[in-house]
């Protein structure tokens, strides 16, 4: 249990960039990546903005035969996985296949593919449904395809905890490594930008109806009125420390040092939500005092009730304005299960550069006693970062990443 679990590779597929360098160049300065929906005609829907990954051509990233077999979410996951393994410098054959696994989080599964097949079923008849539907739309598609492409014969895992799942996946990956695995690829992805996906997002009732890309998603702002949905996520290569050292891993981004997960009391109970407890659990797990934390990457739901709950939890653990808080996802929208792994990437890159990326567009509401890193990035020595994620229904997860010398 004492051996550390290290982050040795990163792959990102986000509206702000494909691959680590593009992503960070945009994120570190808070460059907006939210815009009008272009993947379908959204003019008849009340929410018309999205964080889309423009210029992603699956044929440039996947073998041709895989393209018609996969939903966009899986194509993004496979592209990110290629980046992550290249970044880690691990090629098939380097490590015993049984020592390598994959755990991903999914929110909605292969939504666009599933919607297209449902349309064929009801519009044209059952015989028109694709044979690939049987494995393109289910939530395990990403882990399955990544395991095949990278020769990972160890355990494959898939967790669903709405937006909190991305952190639960990382924790499950660490558990696999502690149980004797050498390497686990882990992260999360969602891709809701299709008519059928949009219907579900709208049914959730928390989407912003804002029309201006820089005013639509404003967590912790007095004008907070919902979220903008985005697509993508991140995949990280986690490795057992001894294993990483013995193969001479070229980059160690940091350590996955702590984790905690809780569930809120039943709605209407009037009792305290579970987020504070999740943070406390993660700190205890990491053996870390709140004063050691240099930055918190917030879940930043963008609705008043959830923002207030999160601000209160952060304040109760770290004290009023006790720690810098940021939410770079204001530039991309919320990526579902992909959001938190992208924030973990931002956290380790903050450590690398000594810079906290900003929460663009937001003017902090006086109702919250937070030290929000708004508008501009902040230079800071970052050694320990907390990443928070919450999911619909009451899921709360917290992860702590720490610099490794």
């Amino acid at each position, binding site marked *: 249990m004492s051996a550390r679990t290290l982050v040795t590779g990163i792959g990102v597929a986000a509206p702000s960039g494909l691959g680590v360098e593009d992503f960070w160049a945009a994120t570190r300065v808070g460059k907006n990546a939210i815009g009008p929906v272009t993947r*379908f005609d959204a003019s*008849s*829907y009340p929410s018309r903005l999205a964080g889309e990954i423009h210029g992603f051509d699956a044929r440039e990233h996947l073998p041709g035969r895989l393209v018609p*077999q996969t939903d966009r979410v899986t194509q993004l996951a496979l592209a990110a996985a290629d980046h992550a393994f290249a970044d880690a410098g691990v090629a098939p054959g380097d490590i015993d296949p*049984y020592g390598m696994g*994959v755990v991903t989080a999914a929110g*909605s*599964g292969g939504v666009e593919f599933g*919607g297209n*097949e*449902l*349309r*064929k*079923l*009801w*519009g044209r008849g*059952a015989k028109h*449904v694709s*044979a690939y*539907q*049987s*494995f393109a739309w*289910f*939530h*395990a*598609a990403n*882990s*399955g*395809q990544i*395991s*095949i492409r990278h020769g*990972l*014969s*160890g*355990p*494959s*895992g*898939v*967790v*669903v*905890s*709405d937006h909190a799942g991305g952190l*639960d996946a990382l924790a*499950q990956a660490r*558990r696999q490594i502690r149980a004797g695995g050498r390497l686990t690829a882990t992260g999360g992805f969602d891709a809701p930008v299709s*008519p*059928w996906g949009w*219907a*579900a997002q*709208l*049914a959730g*009732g928390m989407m912003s109806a804002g029309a201006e890309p820089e005013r639509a998603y404003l967590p912790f702002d007095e004008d907070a009125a919902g979220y903008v949905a985005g697509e993508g996520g991140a995949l990280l290569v986690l490795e057992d420390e001894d294993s990483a050292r013995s193969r001479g891993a070229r980059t160690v981004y940091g350590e996955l040092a702590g984790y905690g*997960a*809780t*569930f809120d009391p*039943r*709605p209407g109970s009037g009792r305290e939500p579970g987020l504070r407890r999740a943070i406390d659990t993660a700190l205890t797990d990491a053996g870390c005092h709140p004063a050691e934390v240099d930055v918190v990457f917030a879940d930043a739901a963008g609705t008043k009730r959830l923002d207030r709950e999160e601000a209160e939890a952060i304040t109760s653990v770290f004290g009023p304005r006790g720690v810098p808080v940021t939410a770079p996802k204001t530039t991309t929208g919320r990526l579902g299960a992909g959001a938190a792994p992208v924030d973990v990437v931002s956290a380790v890159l903050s450590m690398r550069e000594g810079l906290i990326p900003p929460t663009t567009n937001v003017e902090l509401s006086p109702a919250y006693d937070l030290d929000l890193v708004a508008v501009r990035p902040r230079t800071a020595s970052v050694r320990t970062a907390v990443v928070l994620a919450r999911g*619909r*229904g*009451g899921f709360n997860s917290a992860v702590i990443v720490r610099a490794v010398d």
Partner: protein
Amino acid sequence: MARRVVITGVGVLAPGGTGTGAFWRMLSEGRTATREITLFDASGFRSRVAAEADFDPRAHGLTPREICRMDRAAQFAVVAAREAFADSGLALTGLDPHRTGVSLGTGVGAPGALDREYRAVSHDGRLDLVDHTYASPGLYDHFVPSSFAAEVAWAVGAEGPVTTVSTGCTSGIDSVAHAADLIREGSADVMVTGATDAPISPITLACFDAIKATTTYNDQPGTASRPFDASRKGFVLGEGAAVFVLEELTAARRRGAHVYAEIAGHAARSSAFHMTGLRPDGRELAEAVTVALDAARLHPADIDYVSAHGSGTRQNDLHETAAYKLALGEHAHRIPMSSIKSMIGHSLGSVGSMEIAASVLAMKHHVVPPTANLRTPDPECDLDYVPLHAREHRTDAVLTVGSGFGGFHSAMVLTRPDRRTA
């Protein structure tokens, strides 16, 4: 001293009768619940047989609001969780919500609700730009099956770690394995865990028709599921849920709980080969079995019964038989093994948990359930599949396995807690 994890409550909602008692009666009598599909008009499909649960949510105390909010699979899970929780007796001794979690498996989430909702928002497939105003408020929760785990958490009052595990057809083993891991590492003291699926819907039928994975014995629905039989023609869809209460052993003993079994070991491996195809030698499933046995500190000779995956496809039956020979050696020929999918069909993700329930009940009764419909054995499947009739058999340690799309293979070893030697 490592924390040991035991099952102290069981709840089952299966085709052929609601509740754990009805489930076991059906299995031990070797009856089948496969029939012509009645849930909707399936006349246009290639395969029109399934094992359906006769389920009235109102009879189980679900309110109209709950019924409206939840997909059939979520309803199954809540009903099975209530049975398991009542069976555990934990309600009487009290529960620390913060130390109680949920790990719920589902293979395919809510295809029934999605199918229904899609028809509404697309005006029966006419609109590409769907009309979201026809969607029910629950549509988001049907997309994201963590809503199932949330419903179970609300039903039992869990406020610890809660998640849904969705590894396709191994979900029902993997979710329980995850729950056991959380108790072992100290993240929870009590876990409510299992799996649920209700896949019998037009879209599911259509996609399995397209790959010809499901049976065409439409004229013989009662004997359509024929694992290990030479006349098999593919699997038969099923549905249902099994949910368990897991506790740390000493805590369970301290409160005088009935202990059904210990989760002595589990492992998962991946073929990394093909999304739907299997390597004929079964090596990754064999590896999962070997690692699970090692974790349980058991030898193949110690296993009294194998609850097989036995989906009823030729590819699986050969793959699985090869895997047992690799992992168990000579003992593969000696250990009785059976597929309850011959009776309750294949409910995709949840069936793994239903097979754990069958394993636990086999240990309780010292009776192993049969493989129904096995009248003309496939000569290439030459192990003891307990054809047709249940068998009285001393059962103290069980191996249960699952394989699924994505190339996932999982194995779990269950034992009588006082049996374990190491």
